[in-house]
């Protein structure tokens, strides 16, 4: 009994401590965001911030033109413009480039920019062990020469007219020899903004670089927030939590946003050709007739309507319509099912054939894929859809070319050259390669234009892939926001010239850091556990407790082995995922070695366990920061959420349980228990959606998703947790209420309760003073067991609300193949479950000595 009470007291104290901290935050109300801070949302979080060591578009979308600059830049209209080089000359044979550098440029850490830095950056990018994703594009460079501190000469092996364009990409930005190695986590460039901080899973903040060589930006700070979930994106925009979403992921919601005067919806162009890619190296797709048949079978309009809600321009080849050299080839294979069938018959497939369609995660691909499957079925092609995560897609489709068809948007600018490479769709054509060669040698504009048109025609005539639509850039901007790019000639969000055309307000207040709360609660919890252990030893004897401890340790160790092995057989290469779509195999291999993925299996297991024992969880593959730090950040969301949910569940369950028990067998009892049955039958994510529908979409009382962070103020943070906590709590409350009711009914039948009644106590006194105390034990056991599951079981609810909590961290880490994070979090949760079970066991044994004898 004593043990149970102390365990109970310990829980209550932890709970009270949590509540006290939450209340303290409540007092610090949030201040309005200043209008010199731009909050810009993007769908994907970059894996790291080094644009020279990864192909993920999200890296450039944060740092290109903001933190880092190259010799030249791609301007808002897609033209090559001067950047760190003021001017340049090209020799008539196209083999020598001379760049004249800007004077007085410094990196954000104060180190100077000069010709030596240019040589360092370019040599690093094209080095043998370079992890640069676009290494192949630097191949024409034979050597880089420093002429004087402000002049650099590039000598090429052969003419390469696209090189100047490549030098404007994020992969060719200038990095300082001093800081280059740390750019992944702490990027240092020459740009108008410098890196301030990264709240992983949530946002990255850049602040103005006062020492910038060019005109000072009008914004003081930029916060890039990561909101992949279309629902959460819509909610965040509507709630005024973000000022701009340049690639809005939910075209279905644009009509509604257009009607809202607070926003401007501007549809621009990207360089993203969305295609149904065919494996040209594999029968039957190696047959031109089949590829043409598939093109005829596809109805582009239905796809643009169904998948993109009408946004997106149809294309007939691999080339963007906004380009001056574009040729409209959409009429080459009109939608014609009869023609498609005839071509298939002619190719030797009169009854069609079966094929798989592997789809990456974005909704444009998933939706297009479903429509394509239905359209191809009409022509007799039986399609099996396989939905893949990015890591699997990269592994199976891009790397191992193990696919029939896929849908993907090729977002790189001027990427027609992939048809001349040994690329995943397996197209090889000497005629095409010859065209590409001539284009590379061509220095004058009219010849280039003719050749670009010939290339488009060649791709379309060979019907290499089925060309669907040019991906639209769906900009949603605050109505007062000016100076952002309408189009995406490169994958970038250049904010150097952005500003708000209305006066600013106060600066945001500083709020206490979250870390304090964990520091506070941990000793309390530890003290409680120690007290319970001591009590258990005294009352139960060392043999019993020792035995249980041994069992606990063994269970835990077995769990680590299971988790480790499960993780090891997970397909998908974390290194490939990190490098992104266009990475070269050598770069991926170099990264694998860097990440220590080459060791033997047992060796890696023991390294990991030894680390765990020291409290070292390792370093995240994707974020490249200690896993312990990541977990601590996420616990700051998950723990308050779990505590809130638990408190809510208890608060709701107790009155209901007591109410029902006191009226057992009567109509009120039956109705109450019926209601709890309904809540138990409800999937919590569906309940979450209903809550969003009513309280966020309908009443607009609470945000529909996302988490502003504790330093945005206590009130906004708590508000963001209310709906998720409710969604988690009510199904648990239903279970709890039933347990309590049943336990109360049991105790109400006991002799001592009858005695109390006989003594003349009122029914209320009997219930609250006698029966409830004893019914608490089974109820609190359930509460205790629910807690670790609330902490982890929130995976799906965290996904619905897009909260950066533990569950979401694991889920994200699984899809990103950040295996070390998955391992650590799962093991941590297992640890929590095992420890709670152990404590509950001890509590029971302390109460009921009979249990001791059996288990000891």
């Amino acid at each position, binding site marked *: 009994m004593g043990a149970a009470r102390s365990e109970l007291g310990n829980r209550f104290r932890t709970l009270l401590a949590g509540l006290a901290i939450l209340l303290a935050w409540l007092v610090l109300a949030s201040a309005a965001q200043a209008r010199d801070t731009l909050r810009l949302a993007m769908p994907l979080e970059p894996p790291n911030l080094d644009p020279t060591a990864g192909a993920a578009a999200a890296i450039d979308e944060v740092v290109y033109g903001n933190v880092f600059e190259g010799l030249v830049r791609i301007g808002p209209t897609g033209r090559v413009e001067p950047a760190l080089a003021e001017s340049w000359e090209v020799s008539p044979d196209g083999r020598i480039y001379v760049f004249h550098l800007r004077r007085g440029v410094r990196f954000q850490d104060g180190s100077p920019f000069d010709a030596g830095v240019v040589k360092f950056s370019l040599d690093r990018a094209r080095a043998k062990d370079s992890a640069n994703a676009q290494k192949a594009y630097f191949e024409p460079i034979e050597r880089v020469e420093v002429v004087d501190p402000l002049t650099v000469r590039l000598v090429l092996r052969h003419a390469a007219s696209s090189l100047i364009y490549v030098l404007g990409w994020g992969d060719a930005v200038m990095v300082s020899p001093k800081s280059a190695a740390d750019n992944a986590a702490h990027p240092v460039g020459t740009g108008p903004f410098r890196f301030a901080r990264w709240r992983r899973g949530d946002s990255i903040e850049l602040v103005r670089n006062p020492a910038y060589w060019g005109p000072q930006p009008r914004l003081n700070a930029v916060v890039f927030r990561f909101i992949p979930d279309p*629902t959460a994106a819509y909610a965040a925009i509507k709630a005024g939590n973000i000022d701009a979403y340049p690639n809005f992921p939910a075209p279905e919601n644009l009509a509604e946003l257009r009607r809202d005067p607070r926003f401007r919806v501007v549809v621009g162009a990207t360089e993203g050709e969305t295609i149904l890619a065919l494996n040209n190296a594999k029968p039957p797709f190696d047959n031109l007739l089949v590829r043409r048949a598939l093109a005829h079978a596809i109805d582009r309009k239905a796809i643009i309507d169904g998948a993109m809600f009408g946004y997106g321009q149809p294309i007939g080849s691999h080339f963007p319509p906004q380009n001056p050299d574009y040729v409209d080839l959409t009429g080459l294979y009109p939608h014609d099912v009869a023609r498609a069938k005839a071509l298939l018959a002619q190719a030797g497939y009169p009854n069609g054939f079966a094929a798989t369609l592997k789809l990456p995660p974005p909704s444009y691909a998933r939706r297009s894929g479903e429509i394509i499957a239905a359209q191809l079925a009409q022509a007799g092609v039986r399609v099996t859809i396989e939905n893949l995560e990015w890591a699997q897609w990269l592994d199976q489709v891009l790397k191992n070319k193990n696919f029939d068809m896929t849908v993907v948007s090729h977002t790189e600018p001027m990427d027609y050259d992939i048809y001349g490479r040994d690329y995943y769709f397996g197209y090889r054509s000497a005629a095409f390669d010859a065209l590409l060669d001539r284009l590379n040698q061509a220095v004058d504009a009219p010849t280039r234009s003719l050749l670009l048109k010939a290339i488009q025609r060649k791709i379309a005539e060979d019907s290499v892939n089925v060309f669907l639509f040019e991906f639209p850039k769906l900009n949603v901007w605050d109505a007062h926001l000016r100076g952002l790019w309408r189009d995406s000639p490169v994958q970038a969000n250049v904010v150097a010239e952005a500003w708000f055309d209305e006066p600013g307000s106060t600066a945001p207040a500083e709020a206490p850091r979250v870390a304090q709360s964990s520091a506070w609660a941990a000793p309390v919890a530890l003290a409680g556990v120690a007290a319970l252990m001591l009590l258990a030893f005294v009352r139960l004897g060392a043999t019993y407790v020792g035995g249980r401890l041994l069992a606990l340790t063994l269970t835990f160790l077995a769990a680590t082995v299971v988790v480790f092995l*499960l993780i090891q057989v997970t397909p998908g290469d974390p290194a490939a995922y990190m490098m992104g779509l266009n990475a070269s195999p050598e770069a991926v291999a170099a990264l694998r070695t860097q990440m220590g993925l080459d060791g033997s299996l047992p060796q890696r297991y023991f390294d990991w366990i030894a680390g765990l024992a020291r409290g070292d969880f390792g370093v995240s593959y994707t974020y490249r920061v200690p896993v312990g730090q990541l977990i601590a950040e996420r616990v700051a969301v998950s723990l308050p959420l779990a505590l809130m949910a638990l408190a809510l569940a208890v608060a709701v369950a107790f009155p209901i349980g007591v109410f029902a028990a006191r009226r057992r067998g009567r109509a009120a009892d039956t109705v109450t228990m019926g209601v709890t049955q309904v809540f*138990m039958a409800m*999937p919590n994510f569906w309940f979450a959606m209903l809550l969003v529908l009513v309280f966020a979409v309908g009443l607009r009382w609470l945000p529909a998703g996302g988490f502003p962070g504790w330093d945005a103020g206590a009130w906004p943070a708590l508000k963001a947790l209310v709906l998720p906590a409710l969604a988690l709590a009510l199904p648990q409350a239903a279970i709890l209420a039933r347990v309590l009711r049943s336990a109360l009914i049991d105790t109400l039948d006991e002799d001592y309760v009858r005695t109390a009644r006989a003594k003349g106590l009122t029914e209320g006194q009997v219930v609250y003073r006698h029966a409830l105390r004893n019914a608490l034990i089974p109820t609190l056991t359930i509460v205790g067991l629910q807690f670790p599951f609330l902490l982890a079981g929130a995976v799906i609810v965290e996904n619905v609300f897009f909260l950066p909590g533990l569950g979401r961290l694991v*889920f994200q880490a699984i899809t990103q193949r950040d295996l070390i994070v998955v391992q650590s979090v799962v093991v941590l949760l297992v640890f929590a479950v095992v420890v709670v079970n152990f404590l509950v066991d001890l509590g029971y044994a302390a109460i009921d000595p009979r249990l001791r004898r059996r288990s000891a």
Partner: protein
Amino acid sequence: MSETTIPGPATRGGRASAALWLGAALTGLFVAAVLLSLVWTPYPVADLDMAGRLRAPSAAHWFGTDHFGRDVLSMILVGARNSLAVAVVAAGVGLLVGVPLGLLAAAKGGLTDELVMRSNDLIFAFPSLLLAIMITAVAGPGAINAVIAIGVFNIPVFARVARGAALSLWTRDYVLAARVAGKGKGLISLQHILPNIANLLIVQGAIQFSMGVLAEAALSYVGLGAQPPTPSWGRMLNEAQTLIGFAPWLAIFPGVAIVLSVLGLNLLGDGLRDLFDPKLDRSR
């Protein structure tokens, strides 16, 4: 997916309660939807109709149409197949593997018992949904892998129930008599123990069945269940999420379908337990 048995309402006496009837009716509806979908749906679910998409519920489409113009009622009917199949097979996996393990543990005792029960503890130590997500991430999404991921957690549940009930039976006179008569432990388990714990297993089966429906919905919701174009309730809810503001029917009807089938199975389980053994209701 937890093993906690939830006590039901206080219906006294071993007779068919209202809960049982309601549960049987809802479960019947669920099964009827599956059977009906095999022979008839209002519209073919494979047909897309971009011109008729996102229609609100009407006489032509009782539950409206989705973003591809598919009939929601037809999709729910066909989706029931998937829910039923995954949950039934997952419960079957648990039953077929877990019960023999539980009987073995009870019969042999000692090290065997310890081994079986500790492996159970091991599985219980994992947050079930998270491990199911990991399993499907490793093995690839799809209905079959969902069955495995859910079924794994049913094994210890049945093992525990079977072991607990069997242990108490091993001290009964008729079992002792069988032992004296020289019957082996395996035979006794099969002939005497198993028939006597069958009721308990049926009740637990109904509960695990309902949890399987919920778990399948959760896995499908995160995209790890049955793959498109096969309709599944969880994925329908996922797809409804961005459209909820202007097409709420897409989020409401599949959710109601899940709640009704899970509710039906839970009530059926509770009702059966009361029917078989009224005392069980008060045992926890």
